[in-house]
Every structure is written in C-alpha cells, then in structure tokens.
C-alpha cells in the first residue's frame, strides 16, 4: 500500500485510488481499535505535533489518540494561547517548530490556504485538520468510510448535504470526495448559505429540503454556526429549523434506509432533531467519531511511510 503525496492538504489532489487505499487501511485500523490491544508501533520514534490555531476538542483528540495508538510521540500545541498572540507570523512559528524536527504536523487554522502556506516551509509531512472555509480532508475521508461501511459501497449513491455549505470546509471536502467516487451530490440550504456558482461543482442545488431529500441514501447535516445568525445570513433560528432542520417528517422523504450523518458538534433543535440524532437505526453520528480515529491512523501511517522512504533514499539517519 502506497500513497503518492507528501502531505494531506486536501481532497482536491487525491485520485480515487488514493482514497480507496486510505479507506482500506483505515478498515484495518478499525479492527485494531476494537481489539484487545489498541497499540502498534508503526510510528514509533516519530514525533507528531498537533497545532491548532482554532479551538477544537474532537478533531484534536481524534488525532492525538490516532497518533498514540500508532506509537508516535504526540504533542499538542494550543496556538491561540501562544506566540501568535505575541505577534509572531505563521511562517516564523512554522520555522521554529521545524527546527525541533517533527515528522508529522497536524494543523488547523482559521484562514483558507494557511495550511498550504505552512507546508511549503517545513520538512515534515503536514496533515490539514481544517483550514478556513477551504478543506477538511480527514473529515471527508471518515465520512466516506462511514458511508462505505453502512452502505457497502461508495459509488452510485445519492448524498444530500444540508445546511451552511458556504462557510463549511467539511462540505467542500465532501463534495470533492463524493464527486470523485462517482456519487450524486445534492446541496440543500437557504441561498444565502450556498456558495457562489455551486452548480458548477457538478452538484444539484435545492432550497426545498423535502424535494432535495427525495430518494437520498445519505443525509449529511452541517452545523449552523451561531455567528451566521448575527451576520444576517438567516432570519432566525426557529425559521431555519422549520425549513432546514432535520426531523422525522423531512427524513421520510429520503430513502427508507437512508442514514443520517453530522460532523459534530450538533446544535440539537437548530439543524437536527435530538431524538433523530440518537436513533441508532438511522443516525451513524457515533460511528463517524469512531471512523475518525481509524482514518487519521491510516492517513498518518501512509504519510509516514513516504517520509521514511524519502529519508532512506536521501541516505538520512532516519530509517
């Protein structure tokens, strides 16, 4: 199993084969994580640094557990609290860290493209844990794994992505990945939350949720961020819930066996009905979290293999 890329910055550069490779390896890591001993040493001797310039609980924890299960030395840096506050630029922070010889750098940043910029300046493998409104590749990969395991396949499915598409990196990465694997993607939301020229992405756009859900195999809900309300993108929470919140009635328009997904954290009663989110027959939200660890283990394993190969070719001291 090999992977062509040095970094995982987004879904955009991935081929269907890259995606399948990652998911196949992740399947193995699901088994490992469910087994009696959750530990391997494929990343032994490597240093993983999690740099989060934006608050995160789940993604950071997921990357941390993934690294630890693979035997890496993991360090978390809460960047909002550190040198950024002292006026250091992103590049300087990157160079400082680079001097400590990390092997895997997991980065989240509030600005689109910031992780790409950082990747140009360091000698290690960089994983994008979300940059602005651009991409969140491991989220799309974990969603893909969840879908593949629930539906038995990852093509010819109709996937409806609902909510705040415009500000969502999760949506962008999912649109790219699902499209690349030859699925039918629909975007549902108020036009103020749909990105400009979205139809050019090769998706269908709906502003009526019932119509958009018709015949869907997968219903992917997105979190509505509170600050969008203040920005005047929607008139009120209750009107949003009425028109675009997922409840049993709206879900009845999708296929009978349609699964419900959410990248979390959820706003119960804003974008999704609480009972529905907990319905183990429909909701795969907990599985998504589980798959997150496995997918991140797979991604880091693949990048580390390349890193070791590259260093061996250079005759480096690392093996």
């Amino acid at each position, binding site marked *: 199993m090999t992977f062509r890329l040095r970094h995982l910055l987004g879904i955009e550069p991935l081929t269907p084969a890259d995606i399948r490779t990652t998911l196949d390896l992740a399947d193995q890591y699901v088994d490992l994580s469910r087994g009696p001993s959750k530990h391997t040493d494929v990343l032994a001797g490597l240093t993983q640094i999690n740099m989060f310039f934006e608050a995160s609980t789940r993604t950071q924890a997921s990357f941390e557990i993934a690294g630890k299960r693979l035997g890496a030395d993991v360090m978390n840096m809460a960047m909002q609290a550190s040198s950024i506050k002292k006026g250091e630029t992103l590049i300087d922070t990157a160079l400082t860290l680079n001097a400590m010889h990390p092997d895997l750098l997991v980065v989240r940043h509030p*600005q689109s493209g910031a992780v790409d910029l950082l990747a140009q300046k360091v000698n290690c493998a960089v994983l994008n844990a979300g940059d602005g409104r651009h991409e969140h590749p491991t989220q799309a990969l974990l969603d893909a794994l969840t879908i593949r395991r629930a539906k038995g396949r990852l093509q010819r499915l109709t996937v409806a992505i609902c909510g705040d598409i415009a500000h969502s990196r999760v949506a962008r990465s999912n649109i790219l990945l699902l499209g690349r694997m030859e699925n039918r993607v629909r975007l549902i939301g108020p036009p103020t939350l749909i990105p*400009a*020229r979205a139809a050019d992405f090769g998706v269908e756009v709906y502003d009526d949720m019932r119509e958009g859900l018709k015949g869907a195999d997968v219903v992917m809900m997105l979190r509505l961020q509170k600050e969008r309300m203040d920005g005047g993108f929607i008139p009120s929470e209750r009107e949003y819930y009425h028109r675009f919140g997922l409840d049993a009635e709206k879900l009845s328009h999708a296929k009978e066996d349609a699964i419900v997904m959410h990248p979390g954290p959820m706003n119960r009663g804003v974008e999704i009905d609480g009972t529905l989110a907990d319905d183990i027959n429909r909701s795969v939200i907990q599985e998504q979290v589980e798959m997150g660890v496995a997918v991140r283990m797979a991604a880091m394993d693949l990048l580390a293999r390349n890193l070791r190969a590259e260093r061996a070719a250079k005759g480096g001291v690392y093996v």
Partner: protein
Amino acid sequence: MTTLFANARLIDPEAGTDGPGWLLVEGETILATGTGEAPEARETVDCGGKCLAPGIVDIGVKVCEPGERHKESFGSAGAAAAAGGVTTMVTRPDTLPAIDTPEVLEFVTRRARDASPVRIRPMAALTKGREGREMVEIGFLQDAGAVAFTDGDKVVENTKVLSRAMTYARSLGALVIAHPQDPGLSDGACATSGKFASLRGLPAVSPMAERMALDRDLALVEMTGVKYHADQITAARALPALERAKNNGRDVTAGVSIHHLTLNELDVGDYRTFFKVKPPLRAETDRVALVEAVASGLIDVISSMHTPQDEESKRLPYEEAASGAVGLETLLPAALRLYHAEAIDLPRLWRALSLNPARRLGLETGRLARGAPADLVLFDPDFPFVLDRFGLRSKSKNTPFDGAKMQGRVLGTWVAGVRVHEGG
C-alpha cells in the same frame, strides 16, 4: 543642442501611425519628425529599426514616501520607472500620512525633484486623511501642483460628502479620481465570487459591486458636472454604464490596471499572494471584455497600479496578506502581450499608456509632435526574456510575473531630452 533619433520605428499615438522615420530633439522638446532623408544634428542615436514612442504616463503609482520608505522611495521608484519606459509617474496620495495638505505635498514634490530621474506629478487626497468626511483644500493643493484628487482605494461612502467635494472640485476644474467598489458588498472580500473562490474557500465579492459604485458615481457626475476618472474598471458588467455616460457627453474617463488585462482569477492558484490585487483578479470573460474595451477606446488609460509590498506583508495566509503588485518595470512588456496576441496595435496601445493619461491630466507629454516634451522610450517589442523578480529595481519585489515569459525590452528612456536609462 540637437539630437537625432535615426532609423526608428515611430509609434505616434496621436496620429495613429506606426512606421519608419526619424525624430529630432532640440533641448527639452521635439523639433520635428519625418521619413526619408534625416537632418543633421549634434548627436545621433541609431535606433536600429526599433520602436520609438512617447514615454509612458502612469497614473496611480504608489511611492511609499512618506511613511513606508522601506517598501519604495522616490529614488527606487524613479529608477524602476526609467527602466520601464515610464517618463511620468502620477503618484498616489495613500501614504502615511495621506497627502492631504499643501505642506505634505510640497515635501513630496521636493523629494521627487531630488531623487527621481523621471517626472513626478502628484495626486492629492480628496478628503482629509482619506476618511471620507471633509474635503481637502482642493484650491491650495491644486496651486501646489496636485493634478488630481482621489482617496485611492478608499471609497467615499457618504454620498453627501462626495457630492460636495465634486461640486467644489468642479468650480476649480479639478479632476476627481474614484475607485468604484461598493464598500458594503466588497467588505472583507479578497477574491471575485465564482467557482474558483468558492472552491478555495475565500471570501469573495461579485463584480456587480463595481457596477453599483460606478452607477452611483456617474449619477453624481451628472448632478455636479465634475471631471471624473474611474481608476480601475475591471468587470465586464461595468462597461455598459461607462459607455452610456460617455455617449451622454459626461466628462468621464476610465482606467484599468495591466494586471486585470493580462491575468485572471485562476492565476491565484494555490493561494499565491503576489496575485492578490485590489479589486481582485476577475474571470477570463471579464479580462477579454476589458482588452476589447481598451482597443475600442472605451477604457482610456492603462496603468501599472504600482503598489510595493515587502515580503512580510505578502508571506501570510491569503486573506491576511497585503494587496497590490509592483508594475513600473513590467508594465511595458506585459502591455505588449496584448500587441503580440494581436488584440491591439501599438499606436492604440500607446494612446492608453501615454497620450490619454497625459491629456486627461492636462500634460503636454504623450505625443511625438513638434513642441512636445522630449519624453521618449526606445524599445524592442520582440525581445524575449524570463522575468526574475530579484532583478527589479523597486525595493519591493512583489510582482505576479516572476518566472513569466515576456517579450519587450526598454533600450533607452529620455526625459526632457536627457537619457535616464540605457538598456540592452
């Protein structure tokens, strides 16, 4: 003292001609042009059949004095201009502090005289501190040498303030230059809305913001009768409004930056901040429409919108990075891309680069006629090269053309009959 430019290919934007000939300079001015037998002169410059044209008049050059001399000074900008065939820099007032009093303007004029080998004609702010609240001393500033009044890329949001400034400027015959962008719509945007910006996740603005602001400004022009110039028209959708105003006999002209004529939004690629300009680069359909508008004369002026930025202000995430690109030295070869693409002939191109901006500002340059100042550029339009940004004379190296294949090299630049640059 006479100088003969022999064996030249004369590009005369006023006459609209492009052909072999000679040009005779006496002292600071052009004495005669002709074909065939050349007259005797004290000194002869053999042009070797290359193009001789009026020097470029570049409206909207940012020289970072006062305030940010580490980015650009009159000395470095002047050297860059001379090397780029620009003989008159029309400088912007968006410095620190803004050029909004006769005293600051006099400082600029003095620094320019001491340090720059090319002519400098300063613009002044339209409102104090470019804050859009009170108009500047338009009369005093005009007396001190301001050729136009503009708040640069800051839009005067308050329509009443703008209408008063325009009315007052009208009484003095002053030219008002505006940056037509609706401030509400374009707030926070760093890309043009469309598929590319959506995929990159960048906050974007519709090109309609430009048309809306232009419509507003043109209504105020109709109301006040002021002389008006739009610094950059970059969207196809703004062109019909401009055409209508011109057809209705309004005293309106428009410019466009060389970057919007030669690059499009896709050039940003993977967040390359050297391509971040204001307004943001547009779609290819816009670019094509703009080139046609320059060829037809609907857009009057091409400028470099020279905006020096140091490495630190560009090596940032795209949204945070500073806007602007240097352009004094790349304006000529980039503009020649339009000529090589057969979109425009050289006399028409030189109207937009030299004659029209000079006329708009009431300058005598931009012509090859008898009595015009001997501001000249001699260039080889075909000379191929690959641009290396570290070879630029500007203190700042933020050019989007780094590594680009270009054609066109300045062989010599003269200002008032004096050679200020020797290339090749």
